[in-house]
């Protein structure tokens, strides 16, 4: 990562934990996981709690839907690490790689429910334009998304706009495809806590 403290500035116990994870998983600890261990009282503890609430808390959206939103927001932000991580996680959650690829390639033709398609489109507009109109939101409501679903999607969008910015600013290292798959399995089993 671009700051040395994010590479080396961990207490001995944390370094030991990283070494154990590496040994038992066969993969290095991803930078997205390392950064929440850096001075966790400043950022990581509360960031993990918010991200877990958004991604795994009660919602009418499935875990796969929310992982797809995370991948989609990251695609708009062009954050390579998070695109790969959440494409892998959405794919495992849905057990459907084609659907995830299609959604990230062409929203108009992808095999998605209308509420999800229009919600993704709205999250894309908000992330790209950094503003949103009531008209944009009316289209999502007209497609059948409920206000609660929209609020839940906005929380996912906020969580990944934070993570994407840190990933790009600090230059999170890309993983091998196998390591992204292992990370996805972990996120589906344990979430973001």
């Amino acid at each position, binding site marked *: 990562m*671009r*700051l*040395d*403290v*994010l590479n080396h*500035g961990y207490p001995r116990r944390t370094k030991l934990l990283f070494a154990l994870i590496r040994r038992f998983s066969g993969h290095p600890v991803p930078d997205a996981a390392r950064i929440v261990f*850096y*001075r966790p*009282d*400043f*950022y990581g503890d*509360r*960031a993990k*709690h*918010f991200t877990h*609430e*958004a991604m795994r*808390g*009660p*919602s009418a959206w499935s875990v796969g839907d929310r992982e797809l939103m995370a991948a989609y927001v990251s695609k708009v*932000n*062009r*954050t390579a690490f998070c695109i790969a991580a959440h494409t892998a996680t959405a794919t495992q959650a849905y057990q459907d790689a084609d659907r995830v690829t299609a959604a990230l390639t062409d929203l108009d033709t992808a095999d998605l429910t209308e509420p999800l398609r229009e919600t993704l489109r*709205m999250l894309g507009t*908000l*992330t790209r334009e*950094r*503003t*949103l*109109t*009531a*008209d*944009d*939101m*009316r289209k999502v*409501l007209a497609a059948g998304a409920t*206000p*609660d679903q*929209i*609020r*839940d999607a*906005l*929380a996912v*969008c*906020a*969580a990944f*706009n*934070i993570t*994407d*910015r*840190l*990933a*790009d*600013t*600090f*230059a999170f290292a890309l993983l091998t495809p196998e390591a992204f798959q292992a990370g996805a399995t972990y996120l589906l089993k344990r979430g973001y806590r």
Partner: protein
Amino acid sequence: MPDDDRKRAALRALTDRVRNGKGEASAELRALAFDNNGLPPPLDALMAKVAEDASQVTDTDLAAALASGHTEDQIFELVVCAAVGESTRLYDAGLAALAEATAEENPADAS
């Protein structure tokens, strides 16, 4: 607590901590980074990129911020503030658009 409130409360706990809690950077600088407004150069250029298009941040941007006399811990905190600040504004803009759209649909339910 309704689910939506739990999510908002969790984000508020994060924003309160990074803005107002103890830090290596002053609370004043952290607030400016959070707001992406009024930081002195070269911090202003770096934090504007973090907020507006972080994919454009380069090694040189980080090096310039460090060369201006700030420690890595201070830069870490200010980047976190800029990222959380912008994302909170996006969340609020989305919620405001939703409130406006639903108020017109159902004026009796405006809140």
